[in-house]
């Protein structure tokens, strides 16, 4: 038999689910197929809160977004979901074959949305196939889906968002990360993620690469070297590090095989991740009625994938029914996407899309860095004192609690604005890409914003010059959470110990959603230096 549908969606990640919801809510008989046993794609491996705006679920952890989307799907009777189902091929008679329930089934959809996502790149170095070398996705799958510790000591290769986030997740899972290696001269991912790692004591080695994995039957270490400006090894810079696993996070490539087999035209655009489909701004490929969304359309953040999914789904609705009522929403989604990509971190994707749409105005310009004055931060993950000073109120104001937002890079994100009950945080020009600013006249130092920040980049300080003491409140989402009254070791932005302090308050309720807000009291001079704490090995409660 042949299963007929108005639209079939291949891939049950964020883009595919949003496409299915958009199609289903507008009355299409919809089929969503997903290769894995579960829906959610990469979302279900994401323990961090999402960046972006409220519309893309910003401030919510990926795992929770996945659950929200799944329960929305469950309520839709006109959407059939087939998990453990692999799309096998698309044929000239419009039949999509899929492996489902140990059968090769035939599906005839009137329109198609491909949201097959991406796969991880591999890296050539000596012994790159040794057991213990894992893709970042594999590491995330093991620890975040199955709850299995991937290794004891891991070297991360790649400092894009995936490399940085997975490193942090490894530490959350109790794994030691011995360092992050990055061949470029600057950290690739969001700098707030890098700062998060640095204050946990993880070195980020820019302009370094892995030469060789050491070991016979499994990884025992890695040989690294430094690179010059031409990406060549600098003699005499080899160094060996001991580890039991090497995690590769060197980028993603769109999974375009079924798409090109279908005869949709593709093109190579490095900025979008490799071979990508040619498609319109409405995400329609060169084959009428075949749409793409998510990483397949170009590697981007999950927030963009969700918007694209809905956009593709609505365009499928328009294609099948001719219904114009979705047009307004389509227009809105395109504006949202435009907004997400408008800032400096969106430059690569803008440049890639300009090549796709042959926009010579943009492609004639070379990508330049607009990141002013954050050079040290971009190289090391640690902001300079000048950067930090800009974020502080004047000295008189410091006797009352105030928020310090150590967010220096223009990234599309605004949960801090929403989290503040006093309206004290604002983003200039209402441009989601601008860095947030604290209005110290309104800020009460209530710490609401601390656990709301996806980058864990907000701290609340207060200084008491008379007693030469002060307090600092920090976000904390690791194991071995200290208790009130504990004497803890205080760590600076580079993870180095700088003294001790006493835990005065812990907020760990529903509102914090597992990101504890811990307030420690310490010496006044350390207030602006403390960015992490850890239980002292012998640390016992202070005598109260």
């Amino acid at each position: 038999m042949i299963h007929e549908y108005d639209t079939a969606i291949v891939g049950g990640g964020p883009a595919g689910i949003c496409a299915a919801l958009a199609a289903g809510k507008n009355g299409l008989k919809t089929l969503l197929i997903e290769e894995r046993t579960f829906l959610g794609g990469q979302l279900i491996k994401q323990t961090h809160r999402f960046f972006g705006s409220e519309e893309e679920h910003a401030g919510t952890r990926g795992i929770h977004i996945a659950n929200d989307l799944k329960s929305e799907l469950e309520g839709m009777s006109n959407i059939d979901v087939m998990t453990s189902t692999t799309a096998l091929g698309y044929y000239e008679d419009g039949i999509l074959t899929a492996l489902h329930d140990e059968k090769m089934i035939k599906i005839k959809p009137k329109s198609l949305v491909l949201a097959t996502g991406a796969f991880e790149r591999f890296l050539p170095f000596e012994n790159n196939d040794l057991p213990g070398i894992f893709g970042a996705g594999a590491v995330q799958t093991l620890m975040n889906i199955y709850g299995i510790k991937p290794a004891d000591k891991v070297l991360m290769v790649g400092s894009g968002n995936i490399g940085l986030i997975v490193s942090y997740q490894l530490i959350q899972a109790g794994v030691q990360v011995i360092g992050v290696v990055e061949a470029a001269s600057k950290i690739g991912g969001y700098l707030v993620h890098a700062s998060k790692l640095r204050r946990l004591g993880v070195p980020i080695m820019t302009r370094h690469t892995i030469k060789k994995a050491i070991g016979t039957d499994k990884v025992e270490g890695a040989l690294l070297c430094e690179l010059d400006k031409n990406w060549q090894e600098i003699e005499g810079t080899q160094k060996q590090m001991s580890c039991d696993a090497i995690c590769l996070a060197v980028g993603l490539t769109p999974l375009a095989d079924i798409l090109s087999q279908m005869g949709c035209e593709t093109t190579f655009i490095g900025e979008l991740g490799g071979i990508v489909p040619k498609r319109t701004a409405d995400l329609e490929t060169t084959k009428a009625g075949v749409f793409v969304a998510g990483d397949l359309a170009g590697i981007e953040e999950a927030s963009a994938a969700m918007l694209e999914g809905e956009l593709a789904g609505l365009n499928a609705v328009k294609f099948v029914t001719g219904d114009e009522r979705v047009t307004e929403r389509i227009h809105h989604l395109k504006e949202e996407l435009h907004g997400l990509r408008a800032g400096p971190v969106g430059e690569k994707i803008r440049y890639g899309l300009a090549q796709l749409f042959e926009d010579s105005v943009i492609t004639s310009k070379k990508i330049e860095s607009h990141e002013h004055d954050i050079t040290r931060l971009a190289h090391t993950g640690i902001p300079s004192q000048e950067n930090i000073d800009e974020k502080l109120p004047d000295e008189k104001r410091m006797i009352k609690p105030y928020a310090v937002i150590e967010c220096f890079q223009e990234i599309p994100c605004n949960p801090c604005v929403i989290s503040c009950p006093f309206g004290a945080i604002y983003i200039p020009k209402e441009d989601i890409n601008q860095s947030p600013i604290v209005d110290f006249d309104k800020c009460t130092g209530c710490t609401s914003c601390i656990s709301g920040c996806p980058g864990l980049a907000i701290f609340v300080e207060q200084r008491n010059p008379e007693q030469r003491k002060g307090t600092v409140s920090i976000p904390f989402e690791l194991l071995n959470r200290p208790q009130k009254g504990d004497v803890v070791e205080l760590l600076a932005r580079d993870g180095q110990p700088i003294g001790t302090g006493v835990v005065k308050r812990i907020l760990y309720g529903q509102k914090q959603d597992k990101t504890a807000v811990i307030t420690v009291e310490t010496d006044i001079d350390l207030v602006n230096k403390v960015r992490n704490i850890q239980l002292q090995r012998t640390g016992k409660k202070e005598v109260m």
Partner: protein
Amino acid sequence: MREDDIIICRCEDVTLGTIRELIRQGYTTLEEIKRIARCGMGPCQGKTCTPLIAREIAAITGKGIHEIMKQNHRPPFGGVTFEEIVSGRDEE
């Protein structure tokens, strides 16, 4: 650098040394290299090796990656057993 200890295609065990030698011999398309070295014909169907080989071809020949990355994708993706095909045929 020991090119023969650098694996490009995990499925068919093809090393960087082999790929570079083929390119030097004049095989400068993915399809030719696939047919000679079998990389891309294994279980993963070229997902991991293709971008790496394209990069090598580009580095040695000076061709743009977009020119090189043209190749055919053939179904059934991920594979399907004969039994599963027959079961689908008989599905009512």
